[in-house]
């Protein structure tokens, strides 16, 4: 018998029962809930007269719709439809006995930021949320994946989900990253390499010396975007970095339980003889800062390249897609990425809104000013606690003095469900994870980059190579 992959270990240890065709009923340890994908699930429970199987396994927070301006948060959400949705989460969690961090709680923030921050995300867990970026939590050696609303209802009612085992893919990133190159650049480079469907049907483990060198923040950034490579599950093995991060957090095990847990967690890695159906290796030293030019995260190039020409793509479906993307993005093939001017800058989202991300942006911004052609540059921390820590370090002053806006935590312009959005035709350097048409506002044009690259673009007014900025 060959050894097991990390994914197989996590899957096998959560099987409640198995059907003949391999479908397993899996036990779910943690369920994170937000306002957008849960109302219909609670309503379904109510209509069927069902109770929660285990209310203490769930943790809820409003994030997608909340305003990022302090005054509006204090007096209540102006958008009536959004307010109803946030209020509905409050009502549902009270009625069903689920803990909720409400909009004005210091612990409120983006659901994928607060899970780890609170220690509610633990190694070895199965963790789900009605949100595709749940893959983020796999950075802790937990099996975390996004689900739809029917499954949210299923987990609330049964604490289980029906799942089939996926295949295993390993991405090895070996060597040392260059200065100014970050986790975001690694994951964008991976997506550029394998495509947005490259990981479909796989659990994707990130391994290699460059991944082990990353902080938990960096590992979360990478797992966060596994879904952008098509993989529902992203994973990193547990090591001392993981344990140190979890230690002492509010929901983390305490006392004797902590010792038991740590002993068990050290087994959370793929065995040496485990079999991966697909494996690729990247040299970290060759990865440059990345910028997306199109309307899919796989449409990405290094900052020192030109926008590619669809004429050079032989696959006609792809070439056609590239043409459509260029026209939506208002770009010409062959233009140098560094010549693309931007209108707005967004630093935030569950990909890049943690303290390390803000610190990386601040290092570039310090003592400089936002360029005149940039209409709005905003920084939206991932949680109230991150905001507080950043202010303790004086980062807010660096941002404000440069001309950035310093906002309250939430999803904000990552998906533009609240007031923060692009106007038609506006071009944005964004640290979020999706550059789909209209993602940041109808007609808006999104370029995905790292926090350092977004900061550099804000100062220069166009993309710049932060390695020599």
């Amino acid at each position, binding site marked *: 018998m060959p050894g097991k992959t990390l994914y197989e270990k996590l899957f096998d240890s959560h099987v409640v029962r198995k*059907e003949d065709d391999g479908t397993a009923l899996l036990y779910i340890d943690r369920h994170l809930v937000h306002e957008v994908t849960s109302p219909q699930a609670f309503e379904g429970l109510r209509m069927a007269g069902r109770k929660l199987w285990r209310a203490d396994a769930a943790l809820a927070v409003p994030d997608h719709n909340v305003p990022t301006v302090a005054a509006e948060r204090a007096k209540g959400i102006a958008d009536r439809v959004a307010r109803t949705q946030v209020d509905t989460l409050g009502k549902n969690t009270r009625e069903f006995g689920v803990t909720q961090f409400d909009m004005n709680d210091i612990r409120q923030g983006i659901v994928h930021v607060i899970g780890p921050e609170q220690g509610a995300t633990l190694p070895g867990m199965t963790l789900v949320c009605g949100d595709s970026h749940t893959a983020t939590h796999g950075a802790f050696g937990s099996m975390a994946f*996004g689900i739809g609303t029917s499954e949210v209802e299923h987990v609330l009612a049964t604490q*289980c989900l029906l799942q089939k085992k996926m295949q295993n893919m390993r991405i090895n990133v070996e060597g040392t990253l260059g200065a100014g190159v970050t986790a975001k650049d690694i994951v964008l480079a991976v997506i550029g390499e394998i495509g947005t*469907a490259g990981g479909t049907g796989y659990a994707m483990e990130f391994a290699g010396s460059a991944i082990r060198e990353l902080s938990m923040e960096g590992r979360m950034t990478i797992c966060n975007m596994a879904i952008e490579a098509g993989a*529902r599950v992203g994973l990193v093995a547990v090591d001392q970095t993981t344990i140190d991060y979890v230690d002492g957090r509010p929901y983390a095990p305490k006392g004797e339980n902590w010792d038991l847990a740590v002993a068990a967690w050290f087994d959370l890695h793929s065995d040496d003889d485990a079999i991966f159906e697909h494996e690729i290796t990247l040299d970290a030293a060759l990865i440059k800062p990345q910028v997306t030019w199109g309307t899919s995260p796989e449409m990405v190039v290094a900052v020192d390249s030109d926008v590619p020409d669809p004429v050079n793509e032989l696959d006609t479906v*792809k070439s056609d897609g590239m043409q459509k993307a260029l026209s939506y993005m208002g770009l010409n093939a062959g233009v140098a990425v560094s010549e693309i001017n931007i209108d707005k800058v967004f630093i935030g989202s569950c990909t890049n809104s943690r303290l390390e991300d803000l610190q990386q942006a601040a290092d570039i911004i310090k003592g400089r000013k936002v360029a005149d052609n940039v209409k709005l540059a905003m920084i939206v921390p991932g949680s109230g606690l991150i905001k507080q820590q950043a202010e303790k370090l004086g980062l807010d002053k660096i941002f404000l003095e440069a001309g950035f806006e310093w906002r309250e935590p939430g999803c904000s312009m990552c998906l533009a469900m609240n007031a923060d959005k692009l106007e038609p035709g506006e071009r944005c350097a964004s640290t979020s994870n999706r550059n789909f048409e209209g993602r940041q506002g109808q007609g808006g044009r999104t370029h995905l980059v790292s926090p350092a690259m977004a900061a550099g673009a804000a100062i220069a007014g166009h993309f710049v190579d932060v390695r020599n900025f």
Partner: protein
Amino acid sequence: MDKFIKVTGIVAPMDRPNVDTDAIIPKQYLKSIKRSGFGPNAFDDWRYLDPGAPDIDNTTRRLNPDFVLNQSPYDKASILIARENFGCGSSREHAVWALEDFGFRAVIAPSFADIFFNNSFKNGMLPIVLDGEIIEDLFNKVASESGYEITVDLQKQKVITQDAEEYPFEVDAFRKHCLLNGLDDISLTLQHANEIKAYEEKTKQSAPWLFQK
């Protein structure tokens, strides 16, 4: 959940890869706390020329005449064909609700994103994977004859064109059973409540921290 046994209908062609769930139902409509009523806003950005919002009456908006689902007879289509990686992006089940509310019962593509694929089954909608070349053929047929119809027979696991060509497709046995009978997953799972409790008891011994309050 609606049963899915056999559906015959007009096929609408959506000739793009990577149709994402943001495109299928843009985020401003996700503020609804209901499960129905998303149909008029399916593919909103492509379908209308002026911007929409949850409180705007869609009948007052200008339709984009170039968008396939605004053209007769595709506005009455119940089967959608598309290119690779259909349904990528966000996990929003609203995408499936919007397609269903529009009138679609099946989507045929060379590949689907996992979460969308899964969500479809929970709502009585069938995602069918067919080979890229067969899809290319279907696109050609649909282009050559307005109102081209096909039948999706789940029992036999076949797509049957109006020229009586048959293409078999794969479907997971359990999902097929649920769709054919319109079964609700939750009641099926709750039949195993004792096994879930037994799993919990065992885990409380081996990993007590997972149950600490």
